[in-house]
């Protein structure tokens, strides 16, 4: 299997363990990732706040590169996924916007690239059965809640992924890896996103509530698919005992018993090793 790969800026910074675990886990599934050459920032949460046109042309340039590379475009980051899907929607549905975007970026949109979040690719192209088959070290007894955040599922008109109120794909993959997935109602509540720097107090409140609800659900950790959610969950979580926030790829890699996994844990702001040791999942 081969996919075009858009890592996004956080892959080399705050979301380091996401990209490391993504690449390692996919290698185990015989996936060939072809990073699109010369990709740029998607504009994240800032372009659309200040400049409507940039909010479309920045992601569209990446779409143009992916179109040249061919094949499905795999995106691990929820925000990047949302921005690229937003640009695609404008290109598909608004001919005036399309003409402007195409002129700015200098390409002709064919609409043939499928933009897909990593979670969708793992679920649709491999599925829980394959995950179960690859699992050598089941995550038995590890109680987790899946946390999607906003941008993978909302707004549904743009994201077109899973259920915006009750998403289920991540849970089925985690269960296949042997984890115990606790039911809870806050999988798509906002973590505060980019307000983390200017208004950390608000983000502490939102993340604190998420952690409290996760604990009430009986979870020992949260599992995310978004680098901004993950850093907020670990950096803005008040009080103890604090729950670590894993990327779902880290837990899949751990279940696959990948030797690289031990290099991901020290990257966390909340050390997950005590929890993993208590379940005999780390040395």
């Amino acid at each position, binding site marked *: 299997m081969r996919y075009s790969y858009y890592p996004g*800026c*956080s892959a*080399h*910074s*705050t979301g*380091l363990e996401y990209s490391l675990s993504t690449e390692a886990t996919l290698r185990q599934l015989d996936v060939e990732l072809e990073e699109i*050459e*010369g*990709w*740029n*920032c998607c*504009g*994240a*949460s*800032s*372009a*659309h*706040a*200040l*400049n*409507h*046109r*940039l*909010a*479309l*042309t*920045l992601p569209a*340039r990446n779409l143009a590169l992916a179109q040249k590379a061919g094949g499905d475009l795999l995106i691990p980051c929820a925000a990047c996924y949302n921005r690229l899907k937003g640009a695609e929607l404008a290109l598909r549905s*608004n001919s*005036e*916007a399309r003409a*402007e975007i195409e002129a*700015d*970026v200098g390409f002709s949109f064919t609409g043939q690239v499928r933009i897909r979040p990593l979670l969708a690719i793992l679920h649709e192209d491999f599925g829980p059965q394959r995950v179960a088959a690859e699992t050598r070290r089941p995550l038995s007894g590890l109680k987790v809640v899946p946390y999607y955040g*906003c*941008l993978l599922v*909302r*707004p*549904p*008109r743009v994201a077109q992924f899973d259920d*915006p109120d009750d998403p289920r794909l991540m849970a089925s993959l985690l269960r296949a890896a042997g984890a115990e997935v606790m039911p809870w109602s806050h999988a798509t*509540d*906002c973590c*505060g*996103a*980019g*307000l983390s*720097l*200017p*208004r*950390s107090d*608000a983000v502490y*409140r*939102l993340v604190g509530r998420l952690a409290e609800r996760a604990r009430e659900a009986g979870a020992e950790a949260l599992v995310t698919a978004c680098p901004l959610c993950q*850093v907020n969950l670990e*950096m803005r979580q008040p009080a103890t005992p604090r729950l670590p926030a894993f990327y779902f790829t880290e837990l899949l890699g751990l279940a696959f018993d990948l030797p690289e996994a031990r290099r991901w844990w*020290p*990257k*966390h*702001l909340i050390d997950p090793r005590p929890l993993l040791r208590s379940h005999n999942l780390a040395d």
Partner: protein
Amino acid sequence: MAAAPHPAYDGSVSCRPRIGGRPGAPAIATALGRRLSFAKRLTVQRLAGAAKGKRVQTSLITEVDALSHQQVELCYHCHKCSAGCPLLPEMTFGPDRLLRMVQVGDGDRALRSRDVWLCSGCATCATRCPNDIDISAVMDALRQIAVATDVPAGERDALLFHRLFLGVVRRLGRSHEAAMLGLFKVLSRVPIYRDVPAGIGLFLRGKVPVLPRPSGAASEVRRLFERSQ
């Protein structure tokens, strides 16, 4: 970006004729200023109106609708947006009252409010709106209008964050946390000592590389920025 053409009134309840605004003004602005920023377009509109000796009535709702590609007039104030807004406790008005202000043309209060800068763009409101108004897009439009018309931001540091983020992307083609965090520390009103332990924690874990990786995209991204002005 220019306004999407609004459908003519077809008698159904979901499609109402636009309220407020002189139809001529946006059309003139579109013709003259398709490539201009909002502030420049607004000036063009005002000049066009003044030349004809008429009072220019570019109502807020017309501009918001055009920028966001939404129809704010469809809102009947069910309050679902405010009920579900995760940032409501920090806001002064909340999304529902902001939509009302846009409808009645109370631009002053809406644009000056901290609320437009506190919106995290989570799109919970857009997902739940029974009239399919993408309220996050409306919030984006309000922010863009506030900046273009030099209304002081109700949350100064939130605007600073966006400006620094885009400033770094403009120069490097990609974001670069070390540069952005450093500038934010110096320029924001957030106390300089806050977040220092977390920042050191990220640095020690190799998560804020000091030097940016070359992206190979910088010059093309700069051109996109220039074209968007």
